[in-house]
Each structure stands twice: as C-alpha cells, then as structure tokens.
C-alpha cells in the first residue's frame, strides 16, 4: 500500500518543506527537516496515514510537480544550484499554457475535451517533445527534465492514471504557474511604464 501512496508521501513532505521557512538552517539541518516531514506524513489520521488523508482531497501530484519540488528541495538542501530567473519563467510559461489549454475546456465549455488527448496521446506526445527540445535548446535543463521524466513515468505507468495529462500537469502547478506568470507579466508592464515615464521628460525640447 505504501507503494501505491509513495507519491502522496513524497508530495506531502516536499510541499510542506518548501512552504515552510528555512529559518536560516544549514543545508544539513534542512535535510533533517525534510526527513522529519516525511516521517510526519506517516502519522495516522482516521485510519489512514496523514499523507493519504490529504491525498484524498488533492489527488496525485503530476510528475512535473514532483520533479520541480525535488529540484527546489535540492536547492534548499545544497544539492542543486538556484534556478536562473529566465529558466523559471520559461517553465512557468509552459505549465501555464498547458493549464489554460486543459482545464477550462474539461469543465464542459465546449464539445472539445482536451483531456481526451491524454488517452490517445500521440499528438500530445509530439507537442510535449517539441516543448522539451525547445527548453533544452534554451539550456533549460530542469524544464526539459520535467517533461522528459513525466513522459518516461507515463511510458512505464508509474501512476494509477492511464492519461498522459495526469503526468504532465495537476491543478496546483497549473494554478501556481498561471498566477506567477500573471504577476511576472504585470510587473514587467508596470516597470516598462515607469521607465517610459521617467524617460519622457528628457525627450521634451
């Protein structure tokens, strides 16, 4: 049963680890904190482990989310270098685009159901392959790794779902990416406007 829920325990521990402040602990202590959170995920609640109980409401995390959380945890624990801003924006843009394409239409807005593409996945595999190679060409190794490992997990059937989409995206990474991209674009526009305003007087004769 642990096998079936390994993702739930890993997601629970990683998410809590990343959401709570590091408190200036050294990478060694951060590793201990992560191990402690993993232990917390096994606390019993209503006949289930805490992670399984939370998983009842959240469902499985996508493999892309797991890879991203593992990388960010790696940064905190000193195993990986921080991600350049440009790379994180590229990843957020890809995930936001997937979320905008998938979620609204699955809620019955049209006869087109993009989730169906995940059952007959060849066209979607092609598109995701192009995205992964594009990210690789941009030297965005984490982005390429997220999409590549999600596809590998789908190929070997690592999750309970037979649908490719469930490996690529979940509502949490989708919503986070959309919000983050919105904030980023708004910030850029505001900065551009402010720059234009400060330059404007110098253009006057």
């Amino acid at each position, binding site marked *: 049963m642990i096998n079936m829920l390994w993702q739930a325990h890993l997601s629970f521990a990683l998410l809590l680890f990343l959401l709570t402040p590091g408190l200036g602990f050294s990478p060694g202590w951060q590793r201990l904190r992560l191990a402690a959170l993993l232990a917390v995920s096994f606390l019993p609640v209503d006949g*289930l482990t805490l992670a399984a109980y939370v998983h009842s*409401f959240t469902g499985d995390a996508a493999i892309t989310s797991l890879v991203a959380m593992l990388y960010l945890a790696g940064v905190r624990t000193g195993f990986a270098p921080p991600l350049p801003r440009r790379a994180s924006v590229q990843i957020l843009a890809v995930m936001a685009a997937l979320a905008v394409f*998938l979620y609204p239409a699955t*809620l019955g807005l049209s006869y*087109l159901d993009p989730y169906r593409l995940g059952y007959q996945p060849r066209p979607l595999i092609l598109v995701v392959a192009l995205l992964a190679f594009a990210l690789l060409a941009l030297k965005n190794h984490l982005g390429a790794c997220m999409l*590549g490992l999600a*596809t590998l997990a789908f*190929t070997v059937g690592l999750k*309970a779902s037979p649908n490719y989409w469930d490996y690529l995206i979940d509502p949490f990474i989708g919503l986070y990416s959309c919000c983050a991209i919105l904030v980023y674009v708004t910030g850029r526009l505001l900065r551009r406007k402010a720059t234009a305003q400060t330059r404007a007087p110098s253009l006057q004769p």
Partner: protein
Amino acid sequence: MLAYKKKQFVTGVAAVSLLAIFFAAWWLHPDRSVAGFAVADPASDPLAMVGQAPFYRSRFASTDLDEFVHSSSVAALPSGALMAVWFAGTREGAADVQIRGARYDASTAEWGDELVLATRESTSSATRRHIRKLGNPVIALAPDDRLWLFYVSVSIGGWAGSAINAMYSDDFGENWSAPKQLITTPFLNISTLVRNAPVFHSDGTIGLPVYHEFLGKFAEYLYISAEGEVLDKSRISKGTHSLQPTVVPVSAQSAVVLLRYAGDTHHKVLASRTEDAGQTWSKPRPVDPSNPNSSLAAVGTPDNGLLVALNDLEDGRFRLRLMGTDAGLNFWQPVIDLDESPDPLGHPFSPEVYREIIGDKFQLSSGPRRLALMDEFLTHLDQRVCAVQGCDFEYEYPYFIKSADGLYHLVYSWNNAFIKHVSFNDSWLDTQL
C-alpha cells in the same frame, strides 16, 4: 574549453535521452481503434417469447424498513436470476449509506435477503482515501461473465465531488474484488458520476455513460477495458443542463442516448445520437416527453424503437410512466403508468388517507415473502415518507434492462421506502399498445 566540451556532452546526452523517451512513449501508445457496439443478433433473440402468454409481475427487491433507499440498478444473471443493487442509509448523502444488493430467484419469483456490497469504510480501506459518502451503484454483467459494480464516492464536498469506483465478481456476485477508483478527470479526479446502464462493445470494452456536475452539468461516455482500465472518453453534451445519459445501441456503429434535462427552459427529455460507436455525438435536442430534472432509462425494442421509463411531468416525480417511441424518436406513445399518485397533480395526502392508499399499493408488489412486513411498514410510515405538508408519492430513478430470455426488467425507487422490480415480456407489451 574543457568546461564547454563537458556542457556540450551533457546537452548531447540529454537530447539523446529525451529522444529515446519520447520515441518509446510514441511507440508504446498507438492509436486505439474503437470496436462497434455488441448488439444482440435478432436471429438469436428468443423467438420463444413470441406467442407466449402476456407476463407482468412486480416485487419489492429491498427489505429494510428503516432506511432511505434510492438509485437502484439490476443485472440479469444466467438461468433467469437477477441481482439488484441500490444505496440505503438514514438519508441520501448520509455517512451511513451503504451499497446494498439482493438476488432474485427465478424459481420462487422472490428477492432474497439484502446484502451489503460496499460501505464507506470498505471503500476507504481499499482506495486508501477518506470517503465521506457513497451513492449511485450500477451493476452489469459483461459478455465475459464478469459482473461489474460501479458506484460513486465523495471525499470532499457534495455530489459534484464524486469519483467512480469499480469492483467486479467472477462468480456472479458471490465474491467481489476490492473497489478501485477510476481516474476520469484532470481536476483532482472529481465530478464524474454514474447512474445508467453500461453497454458493451464487440471487443469486450465497457461503454459507461457518465455525467459531470462540477460547475457544469454535462454527459460523457467512458470506454473501459474488460480489465477495468479507462481507455478513452467522449463528450455527449456540454454546458450546464444535461445529466444521466441512458444509451441504447441500435447497430454496431449507432446508438441513441436520452438525457435528463437539468435546465430551466423547456423541461423536455434531451436526445443525441452517435454513428461511430460513441466517439462523437450529435448536439442534444429536446424530444416530446417532459422531464422534471429526473432520471430516466431506456431499452431497445424488436422494431428498433425504444421503451422509456420516465417521469413524464414538468414538475414532481409522482408518476412513473412507460412510453414507447419509434427509431427516429418522433412519435411517442404512453404504454402504462407503472406507479402514480391518485392525485393527478401530485398533491400531498394526509397521513391517514396516505396510509390506506399505500397499504393497497404495497400489497400489489410485496409478494408472499414481504407481505408480512406490511404492518410494520405502515406503522413507521410517518418517519419515512411524510413531511409537515403531508405525505407524497414518489416513483423515480428507473433502471431498465432486457435480459437474454427476452424479459424486460425495471427497478426504481418506490417512495424511497422500497426498491421495486417490475418485469414483463413483449406479449404483455403488445397488449398495452
């Protein structure tokens, strides 16, 4: 220079790995062809039924006198036996709701004792999820003699938070597998519900009509493998006004679907068609019978028409009617009112009057085995079906099948107090038309 070469090597290895991963994914997931519907060969239809005496019988399938019972379903087993399932509990959506069932013995023409097939606890234990409530069981015998039971469970929120669980029996319901939750939506796997009879494809694929209730209300069709894995899905309707599709295959490629109308305008049954074994569906259109946002069920008739059980009303569920229609769904004809309130507008009755009427109705369907329950049933009546404004008659949620021996079987909620089973043959049907 060395660092640059190392970076180039890493990128090269990453590119080759990606290529291998995506090629493997492509290779291992070929497009799946869809088999046609498994439609009964007219030549194998039981001609023995032709010329037989008209047959009509009604019985209660449930026994419990305390519980709210609802959303029944029935499957035909070999040798004329049947198995019915429904949900029972203190009220709809209560934590104590169980999925129950009973077997019908054709030799005695009686339903046996109630069985508990799934509970909140058993579902939670098998799926390793917190389960708040259960509902809507659907039972069906597949062509490979595997008996399937689908039912919904909710972990969070109301019915819009439902997911479908599937369990099966390879010995006609004696022993059951642990339930497994089907993953059918990308949004936390919530809001897929089942209510109506599955159909089968010629390769053994199960075609399960389902519906969605979160934000929108629309119908879908799931393709599930004979092993219980979701293979594909198609959308029957969109928007916010259609639910609970009942699918009737007409030929290998075509089928008709009727839908419960959940909108606020015309209050008519909706109909749609597929001509490619369920991959695409025509835009649903309203047809003649009224529908008060209530479940309906249909089966095919030998003349390629449909026989439909429904509440042909704009409001209320106080009359359950059987209607016949042609293949084009253009001409509708009432066959019989299976159960109805004596008041033509369905107004409530005082407890005294109600007790007398329902006592008579009870005897018509109790059969010898359940006749002994009558006094206790009438004593507890007030808590079960009567409210402050009076006592209502409610006949709803029909589920309809035609068994291999040519008999039609219909089960439905009888005042949410009993699950009623009605069976009849084509000869009886001819006498009603």
